[in-house]
């Protein structure tokens, strides 16, 4: 279930990268060759950046792909490292839940007051905030799962799985 959702999120993120690349190329072509710009292209690229960057984060979390420094911790006993993994997941949850909470507040505010960007299309602001919330919702779920798996590993003394 999780894997399928993350595959979908990763694919949507990849589509966003393809779209923003295409949008920039079309915009340059129109400006240099046809003599006019694509309206609101900068706003649209900025909006596409949010899914492009944030949707793959859940996958990265499930692969435990967040960069960390191994040098010193490699000398710690395995049992201590299992508890450090629990602490890492807890600290990760502090930042991720804060972002989820603040993203939700921003989304509801923008949805309620119909906030939009200036420009030709008056594009609404809520879609990128919604994407922000969706992305961090799934990262939070993955981190909760990580916390559970690492807690079990710490209590049982068994190594935690490398990926979820």
């Amino acid at each position, binding site marked *: 279930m999780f894997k399928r959702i993350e595959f979908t999120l*990763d694919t949507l993120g990849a589509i966003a*990268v393809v779209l923003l*690349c295409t949008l*920039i190329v079309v915009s340059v072509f129109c400006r240099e060759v046809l003599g006019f710009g694509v309206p609101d292209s900068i706003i649209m690229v900025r909006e596409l950046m949010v899914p492009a960057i944030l949707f*793959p984060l859940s996958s990265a979390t499930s692969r435990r792909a967040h960069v960390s420094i191994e040098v010193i911790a490699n000398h710690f006993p395995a049992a201590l490292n299992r508890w*450090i993994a629990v602490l890492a997941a807890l600290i990760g949850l502090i930042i991720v839940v804060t972002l989820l909470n603040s993203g939700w507040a921003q989304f509801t505010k923008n949805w309620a007051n119909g906030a939009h960007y200036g420009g030709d299309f008056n594009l609404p602001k809520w879609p990128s905030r919604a994407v922000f919330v969706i992305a961090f919702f799934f990262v939070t779920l993955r981190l909760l799962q990580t916390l559970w798996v690492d807690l079990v590993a710490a209590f049982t003394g068994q190594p935690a799985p490398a990926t979820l």
Partner: protein
Amino acid sequence: MDVATIGFLACAAVIILLAIRVPIAFAIGGVAVVALFFFFAMRTGTFVPDRALLRTTSVAFSSSFDLIHSYNLSMIPLFIALGQVAYKAGITTEIYEAARIWLVKLPGGVAIASIAGCGGFSAISGSSIACASTMGKICTPEMLRLNYDDRLATASVAAGGTLGSLIPPSILFIIYAIFTETSIGQLFLAGFLPGLISLLGYALVVYIWVRRSPSLAPLSGETYSRQEKFRALLGAWPAFLLFLIVVGGIYGGVFTATEAAALSLMFATVLGFARGRIKIGDVLPMIREVGVTTGGIFFIAACAKIFVSLIALTGLSTNLVTMLGEANIGPWGFMLMVCVIYLVLGMFLDPVGIMVLTLPLMIPMVESFGFDLIWFGVIIVKLLEIGLITPPVGLNVFVLAAAIDGQVPIGKIFSGIWRFLVSDLIVLILLVLIPGISLLLPMSM
């Protein structure tokens, strides 16, 4: 507790958490959020958690969202994708082949060609690690097949891979630009000559090394006519064109760096389709992998932006500048301190982590000495490059070892690295003493 103490404690907490293997993004972001909460809660002298919660979440959202919701930074996923697509489309191999055919008769010619190939790959991709990984798959097996010494075959590519951060485009320059609010285009141009000098330095190291011990790199019996050499050079036209789009476009003021990234990626993809090396079905899986890499980099940067807000609010950097003024170490003493700090950090931390952790504190001090931020950016990236090949964590060495499936032990790769480190240190001294090397191109814009 005064606000500066909150800032100092937050820095100490981050260092401890990083040391015990808490992921960089979690450590910086988690500590920043908690410290911001205490900062806002105790601001009026009495503890008011309700108001603090709202303010903290607001700062956390605006700092991180503004970073991600950026037009200019869309070049990061585009340049990372370009590296992948260029490899799939065969562009990377052509650069190496052209260099190999031209240089094969030199002592250690294939190793020099590998370094030149790394330089070429660096000119179309912005990541040192991607450069070491990609070129490691192409060049090192070829050198090992030709009975090159293991140390030479690996160390030359690990060192050459570091060019990815200096020769434009460069992810590190983009991240530096975010935190210092300097021009990405100017930083790209500033990195070009230092990158070229580093490349020549590495080539010289190989030349001298092999001249002194010819058995390390048996001369190949292959000979190529002038016609074949020019044909190989012409065969690498896509790489030249991509470089022209990126550097020529920015230098000539035709494109912004973001537009150059999009155009290059589109061109490389279309070329891959035309050559039949990339199929429609390959595009999304390729970009999906790019997404995971890019997401990780941005998450660190977004958390660092929250930390930067904390540093600004607590006035920590101002305190450090004052302390520095009182210490009376002078500009050159400061530069020496910077070099030592970054070289030591480079031995243990990854470059993005070092940058986001140190720049918020470092830049006000740099400005207080009146240093040029573009020049300082080049020095920082060069120092971070050196960190990529210094033990015990030299990331490029580990990436290369993985790319060649552990055919050469890590220790052996490191034993070949020190010669390249000597060259790097000489180049670093030149860059520090002669800022014109870095500033010549951006000043002539």
